C-alpha cells in the first residue's frame, strides 16, 4: 500500500480569493471521488482533509484570484512546489467577481466597508493567477463543471493535454436541443460570445447565458452588444452584463468599458 501510494501523482488544492465553490465541485464528484483516490494521492486539500503531504506536487489545482500582497508571495511558492499548475474557475482564471474592484476606487471601498481600514492590506486589483506565475492550464467556469474537471485530472494523470472545447455555449445549447432564448423569447443571452463548458445550463432553463465561462475563442463582443441593444438593453445594462464573473477577462473588460456611461459623457464633451 505504501509503495503504491508513493507511486501515485500528488494532487494539491489551493485556495486564494474565492468562494470555495470550485473546490466543492471536486468534492461533489462523489461517484468519481473513489476512483480518483485510487489514481492520485490527495496531498494537500484543506477543504477535504487535514492531512498534509509535503510537496513537491504533480498537479496543483488553484482556486481564487490574487487580491493581497500575501497572496502574490504564496502563489509563487505554490508554483515552485508544483510540476503543473491548473487554475480552476473564473476567479483564478480571470480575477472573478471580485475583479469588479478593478473598475472602482479601492481606497474608497475600503473606507466605506471597514471600520478600521488601516488593518487591511489589499491590492487595488483582483488578478488571475496567470498574472503572477506560469499556468499550465486554465479551467473556466463559475463554478467549474464537474465533467470538465474530471477530464482535466484524467489528462494530467495520463500525461496528456486536457480536451476542453473553446467554442461558444450555442454549440452545447443546440446539441442538447434547447430552443434559443434570444431568438424565441428576446431574452438577452451571452451564449454566442461565451465559452462552452456548462452544457448550456441556463438557456436550457429559459434563462439567458450569464457568461460564467468567460469569452469563447472568437468573441465578437461588439456585434453581441449591438444585438443586446436591439433587444432593448440600455448602454449601462450592456456594461453590466459583461461585468460579472469574468469582468476582468480582456474581451469582456474592453467591451464593458465601451459602454461605460462616463465614457459616453467624455465623448460628448
Amino acid at each position, binding site marked *: 500500500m505504501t509503495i503504491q501510494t508513493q507511486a501515485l501523482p500528488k494532487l494539491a488544492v489551493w485556495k486564494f480569493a474565492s468562494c470555495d465553490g470550485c473546490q466543492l465541485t471536486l468534492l461533489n464528484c462523489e461517484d*468519481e471521488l473513489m*476512483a*480518483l483516490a485510487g*489514481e492520485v494521492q490527495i496531498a494537500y486539500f484543506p477543504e477535504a482533509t487535514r492531512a498534509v503531504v509535503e510537496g513537491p506536487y504533480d498537479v496543483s489545482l488553484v482556486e481564487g484570484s490574487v487580491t493581497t500582497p500575501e497572496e502574490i508571495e504564496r502563489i509563487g511558492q505554490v508554483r515552485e512546489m508544483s510540476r503543473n499548475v491548473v487554475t480552476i474557475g473564473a476567479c483564478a482564471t480571470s480575477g472573478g467577481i471580485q475583479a469588479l474592484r478593478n473598475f472602482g476606487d479601492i481606497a474608497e471601498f475600503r473606507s466605506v466597508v471597514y471600520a478600521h481600514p488601516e488593518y487591511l492590506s489589499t491590492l487595488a486589483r483582483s488578478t488571475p493567477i496567470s498574472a503572477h506565475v506560469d499556468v499550465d492550464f486554465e479551467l473556466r467556469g463559475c463554478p467549474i463543471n464537474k465533467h470538465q474537471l*474530471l*477530464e482535466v*485530472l*484524467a489528462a494530467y*494523470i*495520463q500525461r496528456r493535454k486536457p*480536451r476542453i*472545447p*473553446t*467554442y*461558444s455555449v*450555442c*454549440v452545447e445549447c*443546440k*446539441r*442538447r*436541443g*434547447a*430552443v*434559443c432564448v*434570444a*431568438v*424565441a*423569447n428576446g431574452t438577452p*443571452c451571452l*451564449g*454566442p*460570445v461565451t465559452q462552452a463548458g456548462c452544457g448550456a445550463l441556463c438557456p436550457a432553463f*429559459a434563462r439567458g447565458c450569464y457568461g460564467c465561462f468567460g469569452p*469563447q*475563442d*472568437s468573441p*465578437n463582443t*461588439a*456585434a*453581441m452588444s*449591438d*444585438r443586446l441593444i436591439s433587444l432593448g438593453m440600455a448602454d449601462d445594462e450592456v456594461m453590466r452584463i459583461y461585468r460579472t464573473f469574468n469582468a476582468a477577462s480582456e474581451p469582456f473588460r474592453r467591451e464593458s468599458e465601451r459602454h461605460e456611461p462616463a465614457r459616453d459623457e467624455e465623448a460628448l464633451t
Partner: protein
Amino acid sequence: MDAEMRVLDLLGLQGLIDTLRARGYAVVGPTVRDGAIVHAPIATIDDLPRGWGDDQDAAHYRLRRRADDALFGFAAGAQSPKPVLFPAEELIWRGRRTGEEFTVNEDGAERAGDEGPYALLGVRSCDLHALAIHDVVLLGRDHVDVRYAARRAGAFVVAVTCTAPGGTCFCASMGTGPRPDAGYDLALTELLDDGPHRFLVEVGTPRGEEVLAEVPTTSAPAHDVRAADDAVAWSVAHMGRTLDTDGIKEVLYANAESPRWDDVASLCLACTNCTLVCPTCFCTSVEDVADLTGDVAERRRVWDSCFSEDFSYIHGGAIRPEIRSRYRQWITHKLASWQDQFGMSGCVGCGRCITWCPAAIDITAEAAALRWTPQPAAGRS
C-alpha cells in the same frame, strides 16, 4: 406512385399515428416546447401544435395563436428532423484497455439500429429535400455513415405540404417546396375551409399505401384536390424571402476576396447557430472520452461547425482564424462548392439560418449583396 388520392379526417390522422405505432414505429412529429415548434415523440393528435402559428424574421421567432385549429399551420420549426436520424452526439465505439492490449467491445452502429424504426410525421418539403441531400452525402459515396444508414433505412416519412410559409422561407426559389414532390411514404396537405378539418393524402411508396390501407380514408373529391393546389399556390406567393440561384456558384467563387466578407464578419458572432440549425449541414467531429485511468474510452461523433476556430486547426494554427473566412467557407459551401461535390445545392431554403442567427445575418441578403458587389482582382498579396 400514381395511386388514387385519399382524404383523411382528424380521426383518420389519429388512426395513422396508431397504425404506425402498432407497426413498431417511434412516431416523431412537431409539438410545442419552450416557445417553439420542436420535434418530439407523438402519441396522439393532441400532441401536435393545434392552432399554433409563428412569426419569423432574421433573429426573430415567436409562436402566435392562429384563428383556426390547424395542426400544421406553422413554418419551419426550430430544427428539421436532422437530430432524429443524425443525432447531435452518438457513440462510434467504446473500448477497454488492458495493459498494451485494447478491445472494442461496444459498437454504436448496433445501438443506432436498435432505436427505431422512426416514423417522421409532418416533414416539410424543405426538410424532405434536406433528407435526400443527407442520403447522398452520408450514404451515396464510397464511405458510408453506418449509424445514419441504420436509422434511415427503416424510417417512414409522412410529409406535409407547407401552407404557412414564414418570413424567412425561400424554398420556392430553391425549387425544394412547398409541396413534397418525392421521398415520402405519405404526403398530407391540410385543408381548412368551410368543410371538415381534413387532409388530402398522396401515396409515395407501396409501404405508404400499405399503411394507409389500415387507416379510415375516403376517396378525394376533385374540389379537395383543387383546394390543395390552391393552398400550394398561396404558399408559393407568400414566401418571406427569395434567393436568386442563377449562376450562384460562379458568383461565390469569383468573390473569394470580396470586401463584403469583412462586413459580414463585423456582425457574425461565430456562434455556430446557423450550421447547427441547418438541415443539410453534416460536419462532425469526434470526441474521445476516457475514464481517469484511460483504460475505458469511447469515441463519439458530435455535430461540429465550420464557424468554430478549432474546426480547421492543424499543427501551427487554424486554417481559418478569421471569422470572415469562416463565413465565406459556410456560404460558399452551401451555395457553390456543394454543387461541385454532390451535384446539388446545399441549401433548401428553410430559412432557419436566418431566423436562428442571433445576429440577424441573412443568407439571401448576403448572396444578393455578393452578386452586386464589384469583384476585386483575384490574387494574393
